[in-house]
Every structure is written in structure tokens, then in C-alpha cells.
């Protein structure tokens, strides 16, 4: 990669990865630190084609606590992965999945009003989707092999790990 990317290109891509990681990690930590945080309200506010599936999740206490737990810790782990450049490709995939789920539950469709309003105006493309696409970029440009713990892992882990993990 170092042959293909200039220093300035690499720097901006690293910034992108770190910023997304920072965003995920802080969102995750704040939820973990808040003892009463639950995904329930967000799930109940779902709309669109898959809205009902998410609303049903909120209806069951067991599923709801599981989803809340999973969401909190997925945010933390993905955030750490991206920020530290540790298994960053895998983290990018995780982040894409998480953001895709948010989008499925809260698509920016015309005529849908959410209880918790977005702070801007969106049609189809919202900030979640932009971040999702940006994670696609961090996946195809695995900068963590240059700046990040993966620089070490890439030396010690088998070649096959490069495909989706580091």
C-alpha cells in the first residue's frame, strides 16, 4: 500500500479511521457508563420496512436487554479496533453491520417522522449511511497495517488474516 498511497493520502485515511473509531468508542462508553441506558426507546421508534421487527425486539425484556448489551459493547470494541488499528478490517465490517442495522431501523424516508429527531434534513442518505460508506473506505484501504497495532499483527498472523481481519 505504501507504494500506492502518498503520505498525505495515508494521513487523511488514518484520520478517517481514527475519527470513526473515536465516535464509536465514545458512544459505546457513554452507554456502558449509564446504568439505565437501554435500546428500548430507540427500537420502539423504528420505522420503515423492517421497523416492526425492531419494535418486536423492544417488546420482550430478554431480547431488549440482550440487544442493549450487544449494541453497547459492539460500539466499544469496534471503536477500539478502529482507533488502535487493531483488527481494523474486521472492525470496519462490524461497524458497517451495526450502521446497517441502525439504517434499517431508522431509514431516512420521506414522510417518516422520528420521535427523536435528526438534527438536520435527510432524504435516503443520513449521517449513519455516510459513516457506513466511510467504513467501506477504511476497509479497502487498510491503513492500520501502516499506523496501528495491525502493523505488528500483519507480521505475525497468517497471510489469510489480511483478507477480512487486518
Amino acid at each position, binding site marked *: 500500500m505504501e507504494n500506492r498511497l502518498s503520505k498525505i493520502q495515508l494521513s487523511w485515511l488514518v484520520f478517517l479511521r*481514527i475519527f470513526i473509531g473515536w465516535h464509536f468508542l465514545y458512544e459505546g462508553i*457513554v452507554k456502558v457508563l449509564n446504568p439505565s441506558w437501554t435500546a428500548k426507546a430507540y427500537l420502539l421508534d423504528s420505522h420503515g420496512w423492517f421497523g416492526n421487527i425492531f419494535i418486536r425486539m423492544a417488546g420482550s425484556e430478554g431480547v431488549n436487554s440482550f440487544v442493549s448489551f450487544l449494541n453497547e459493547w459492539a460500539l466499544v470494541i469496534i471503536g477500539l479496533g478502529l*482507533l488502535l488499528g487493531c483488527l481494523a478490517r474486521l472492525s470496519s465490517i462490524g461497524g458497517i453491520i451495526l450502521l446497517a442495522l441502525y439504517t434499517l431501523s431508522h431509514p431516512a424516508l420521506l414522510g417518516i417522522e422520528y420521535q427523536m429527531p435528526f438534527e438536520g434534513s435527510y432524504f435516503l442518505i443520513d449521517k449513519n449511511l455516510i459513516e457506513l460508506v466511510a467504513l467501506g473506505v477504511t476497509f479497502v484501504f487498510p491503513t492500520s497495517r501502516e499506523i496501528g497495532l495491525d502493523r505488528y499483527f500483519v507480521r505475525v498472523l497468517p497471510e489469510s488474516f489480511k483478507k477480512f481481519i487486518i
Partner: protein
Amino acid sequence: MEKNKGKDSSEESRKGNPGKMGRREVIKTLATVPLLGALAYGAIRTRKNKYLGRDISDVFSLSSSDALYLQPKANGKQIRLGLIGFGIRGKQLMRAIGFAEPSYIDSLTEAKKKNPDDTRYDLFREQDDLNVVINGVCDIFDVYSEAAMLTGSNIYREGSGGKFGPPPRRYGTYQELIAADDIDAVIIAAPDHWHGTIAMAAARAGKHVYCEKPMTWTVPETYMVRAAVKEAGIVFQLGHQGRQTASYQKAAEIIKNDLLGQVSLIEVCTNRNTPNGAWVYPIIEGSGPGTIDWKQFEGDPARIKEYEDYMRSCGLERFMGPQERSRFSLERFFRWRCWWDYSTGLSGDLLTHEYDAVNQIMHVGIPHSAASSGGIYYFRDGRTVPDLLQTTFEWPDRGLSMLYSATLASSRDRGKVFMGHDASMEVSDILMITADRNSDRYAGKISKGIIPTDQPFFTYVPGQSKVDAVTSATELYFAQRGLLYTYVNGKRYDTTHLHLREWLECIRQGETPSCNIDMAFQEAITAHMGTRAYLEGRTMYWDKEKEEIVRGEKA
């Protein structure tokens, strides 16, 4: 890092790749680690400000317990019920104890087919079995009577064409139903002018009574019903299902713990904006002089005399009739709430729910005085009861006033608001408390910026037990929009179901229901004071010693 290094060397030796990491390598590998420190600083500060700093338990002490309900005991005996009145409310009460018309089940399954997320059918099917049997039904309209029999036999909660049990016996009069040996308790959902008469007769026959609100139509019968119920020692429950609302129980605890300071003003209202809400109900097919027992509908002669004597003695003839009582009328039969001849008006029908909620939360008892005004301002359809009413009740010894208002031509809801020196509380299915900017109790927390005054600082949503901290903006946002459902132990319940269940359990366990005869007496007298104040155009007072409504000077 040390660990990594250890792993590093072992991995390298395993792979036989000794390529050593230079200083540059290490820096590039760990370049972003210091960022964790910066992020941790932010997280710790957030935790301190947002969560730990929100603790208000020193000035706002409230238990974390959820609403308490009298729990059914295993192996309780089956209660044999009789139902009197199968109109709109009678049908709802039957559903609340697990008996629905097959056509109603059909409509629910149809709705579920159209929209898989319409859960009303599942909720009804899953509603607890209250271990009751309907042995008798009575309605003076043949169509309703037959529907009630079919409903009483729908023990498997099935739609049309389903499997049914034996139908309950149909009685032509309430007297015959009450006299039946195989009936332990009756549910009264007849029109208002029959409530007291049937309740008294049932009590005297030793039957337990669930009576729809208001308890009585005339003032004199109010005392008689109380005496009959107390003498018979039966279990009496008045149909204010709001008693089972979890947030009302929490509101009562908040008042008891003095968290609002002295409450000087309560504002309540019931606004509606549809013909149905204004009691203009449909005329049912199959109704006519041949299928309706008009003589029985007219009322009990003793009650009618009490009503007419009062109206005439006070010069209120203009509120009577205008049609002859003996003349058959489908309008008057189905829309009886529109005429004082059968109705208790807004005061008896809707104010009572609000008053009973306030009485449950603050134990106010019968007010010292009542003043009313209003009129027929929108539904000028020949009715005699007002469609707009405001009534003010005062409790000077408690320094308290309650303002009730209702219009049937706007559905703008003002909520139930309790205004205290330290905070105000808005109660619905959820509860919200906003601190007063001039509060003494919360002054310290307000000046530190912990408790805001421009929005509620505490919300209670049933099923969520957090009580010791300021509600966050997100929680408040969702709570205000009712997105968080009301659950009892994780299950969604209908308050009418819970209210009937409480009555049945009190019969089984020898307990007293929450809306017992004393509460019912207070409810009825309060409603009558409001009504009389409206009709006579003067303030009504309550003489506590003599237990009498006393007239004030005409305004």
C-alpha cells in the same frame, strides 16, 4: 505492551521470522494509543456531570417499588356472575373479564390479518383467566340480551363459528337476576338512573356489586346505597378503573412524601371532540317498541320521584323532559346521557373519573364547596345536559382548590396537573414533575444546575424503577410521547381488567377494594354538588357534621 512484546518474540521464534521491530516501527504501531487517554478523560467527565451529578435522592426520596396489586391466589373459588346492562360499557366490562362477542373477536382477527402488528387479538387471548362464570344476563333490549347470552357462552374466546359453552340464563328483570341462587355477584352497567336502585337491591340480596360510575343518580339514594352496602357487608367496587393506573399510585407516594410542597391548585379536564364522545351513539338495528322494555327503562318510581321533587322544588323544570317520560324514544334509549331524566351529565360521567383520581392521589374527601358554570354551546341537538362545564371545588382546610373543565367540542387535553409550592406534577399513564423556580426544597439543586426548571426533572414510567436521578433529555423525550409502554411485571394490562380482578379477589380473600363504598359515596356526593351548583346557579357547600349538601346564596 509488555505482553505484546512477549507474544511478539514467541510468535517470531515460532515462525522463524526474527525481523526485529525498530523504534520507528513501534511508534507507528502504537501511534494512536495515546488518544485513548484523551477519550477516557472525556468519558470520566461525562460520567461525573451527566450521571453521578444527577443524583437528587437527598431532596427527592421515593421508593423504587412499582405499583402494587392484590394478587390472585391459587385455587380461589369460582365466582358466579350476573351482568345487568350489555350496552357499550357492559360489553367492555365483559371483555375485561375474558368474555367477548364472537363478532368482536372476528373484528380483531380481521385487523390482525390486515396489520400483523395489531396485537389486540393476542392481548385478549392472553388476558388472565379470572375464574368466573356468567350465569345470568339481563338487558331490556332483546338484541343486547341475546348478544349477552352468546358472549357469556364464549368461554373459549372464539370468533363466529367457534366452540361455545352453555349460555347464561336470560332474565327479563334485574330483580329476577338478583334473586337467582346461582349468582354470587353482579356487574351493573345499566344507565345512570338505575345504578343506585340495582346496587341497593343486589346488596340487600347479599350479592357482591361492581357498579359503573357514578354511584347514584339522585342525592337521597346516595345515602341509601351506602347504608345498604354497609349493612349487607358485601364487597362493593365502583367502576373507576383509574384506581389501577400505576402512575396514580406513584403520584400518591409523591404527595405523601411531600415532594411537591403544599399543593394549592389542581387542574383536571376531560375534553372530547366527536359525536360519540358527546354521547350521540348510533341507533342499533332491531330496536323498537317491540324489542325494548320501555317501562323498565323509565326508571324506578321512587327514584323518579326523588328526581322530580328536587327539580320542581328548585324551579328547574326547564332541565326536565322535554319529552314525556312515558313516551317511547329510540334517541332517549340509546343516547340517554344527553338528558337529565336519566343522566348525571358531564359531572357524573366524566368529572367523577378526574375527581376519583385526585381523591386516590391526595385523599381529599368531599370538598367544602362546589361552583359550576357552563351550558349547551355546541351540540344544540335537543339535549338538556351541558356540553361545556367548569366546576371549581374548594378544600379551604387544606388550602386546596380543584378546577375541572370539559368541552365536548375540542379534544385539546390539558392533563391532570397538581401545582405545589416546590414543584408541579402532571399525571397521565406516566408522571412528570417540574420543579418550581421559586421552590425552597429544590433551591440548592436548582442553583447548582442539577435540577432544571424549564422542563420536567423527574419522569415515572411504569415498569422502570429508576427514581433517584434527574431524568435525561432522551428519556424525557420518549416518555413525553408515550413511547414507553405501561407494563405490570413485564406484561401489558388493561386497567379495567385489573379493576374487576381486584373486586373478584377481594370477594375471594375478604379484602376491601380500592374504590369501595366510602370512596363511592364521596364520588357521588361530589358529583352531585357540581351538578346542583350548575343547575341552580349557586355555590353548594358540604356540611361535614350533618353530611348534607347545603345551598349557598344565589349569585
